């Protein structure tokens, strides 16, 4: 009997302890629940932010964002070379450029601007957003308007193909989640910080130093030829220009580092194949040599 009483007392004590623990733990559990909820909310919010940024970064830059980059690059090109101040020549290059660009698929918010750079170097550049440059030296090497149309067509094709912007958008995606990678869909502070600190430098280094991928260059050749041909010029203008470019280079014994473009032989083989496959060869279309020589007399007088 005594043992039973003892067991009963122990059991009562155990129940009391359990009840005490349960009762005293209730506020702590409630507190823990609050902490868990808070942590879940924070995680959801962070996740939601990351998803939002991921979606924004996956969306290609807008036309306005592209122009922000292009303006910066164009300002550096002009800062380096300076514009060639010759209104009649500027008008002529803009007319040829607009004729060719008129055959490119319209891109909402993108207009094409053409300028002549005051340089003897033989070159042409395009920046995102439709900023297209040709040097006096390149104009002097052209023999007729169809060659100029071919060169400008190649540069226009870089813009329509968004070749530089693909590199910018890829870089943006890598930065998602970092502070600078946020708010890309808007032209807010984060975007403008990206443009000024990274975007313009990346675009300029790509265009002037590293070069675009080989496939993009060959694509610009083919697409540019298509634009020039659709504008009414013979399809082989760019090809003829590149032959002269190669010849001028060889004549002057300049060593070549073709890290920015595929070799001319490869480019012209691609162009020839493109023209042949479309049956655009042996065209009797106007090359417009006379008009070209008349309108560009200033560059030959200077060089």
């Amino acid at each position, binding site marked *: 009997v005594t043992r039973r009483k003892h067991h009963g007392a122990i059991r009562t004590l155990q129940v009391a302890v359990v009840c005490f623990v349960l009762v005293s733990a209730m506020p702590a559990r409630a507190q823990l629940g609050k902490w868990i909820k808070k942590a879940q909310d924070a995680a959801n919010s962070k996740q939601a932010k990351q998803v939002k940024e991921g979606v924004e970064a996956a969306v290609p830059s807008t036309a306005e964002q592209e122009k922000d980059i292009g*303006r*910066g690059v*164009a*300002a*550096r*090109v*002009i*800062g*380096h*070379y*300076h*514009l060639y101040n010759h209104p009649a020549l500027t*008008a002529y290059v*803009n*007319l040829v450029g*607009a*004729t060719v660009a*008129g*055959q490119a698929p319209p891109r909402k918010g993108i207009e094409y*601007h053409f*300028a002549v750079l005051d340089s*003897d*170097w*033989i*070159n*042409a550049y395009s920046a995102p957003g439709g*900023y297209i440059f040709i040097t006096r*030296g390149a104009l*002097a090497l052209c023999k007729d308007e169809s060659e100029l149309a071919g060169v400008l067509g*190649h540069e226009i094709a870089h813009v329509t193909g968004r070749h530089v912007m693909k590199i910018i958008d890829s870089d943006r995606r890598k930065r998602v989640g970092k502070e600078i990678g946020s708010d890309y869909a808007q032209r807010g502070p984060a975007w403008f910080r990206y443009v000024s600190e990274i975007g313009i*430098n990346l675009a*300029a*280094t790509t*265009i*002037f*130093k590293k*070069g675009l991928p080989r496939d993009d260059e060959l694509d610009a050749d083919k697409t540019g030829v298509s634009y020039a041909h*659709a*504008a*009414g*010029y013979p399809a082989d203008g760019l090809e003829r220009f590149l032959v002269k*470019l*190669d010849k*001028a*280079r060889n*004549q*002057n*014994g*300049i*060593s*070549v580092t*073709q*890290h*920015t*473009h595929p070799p*001319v032989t490869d480019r012209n083989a691609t162009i020839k194949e493109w023209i042949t496959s479309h049956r655009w060869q042996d065209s009797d279309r*106007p090359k*417009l040599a006379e*008009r070209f020589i008349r309108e560009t007399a200033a560059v030959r007088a200077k*060089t």
Partner: protein
Amino acid sequence: LKEITGSSSEQTSATASAGAKGVGDEDGQKIADAAPDEKGEAIMESYSLPKGALAKFIAGGHLVPKQ
């Protein structure tokens, strides 16, 4: 385009052999690092062709653009 790249000494020889015309491509990094001329960029961007000039130009060249 950027087909030709020469060093500054090569540029000198090109200039000498080609008369006044230099053939080549300057150091791309210099262009990329150039001080921006925002005024020049604004001039370029604000340029517009006179109304009707493009149609006249196309007709004058007997060009037949694809419609």
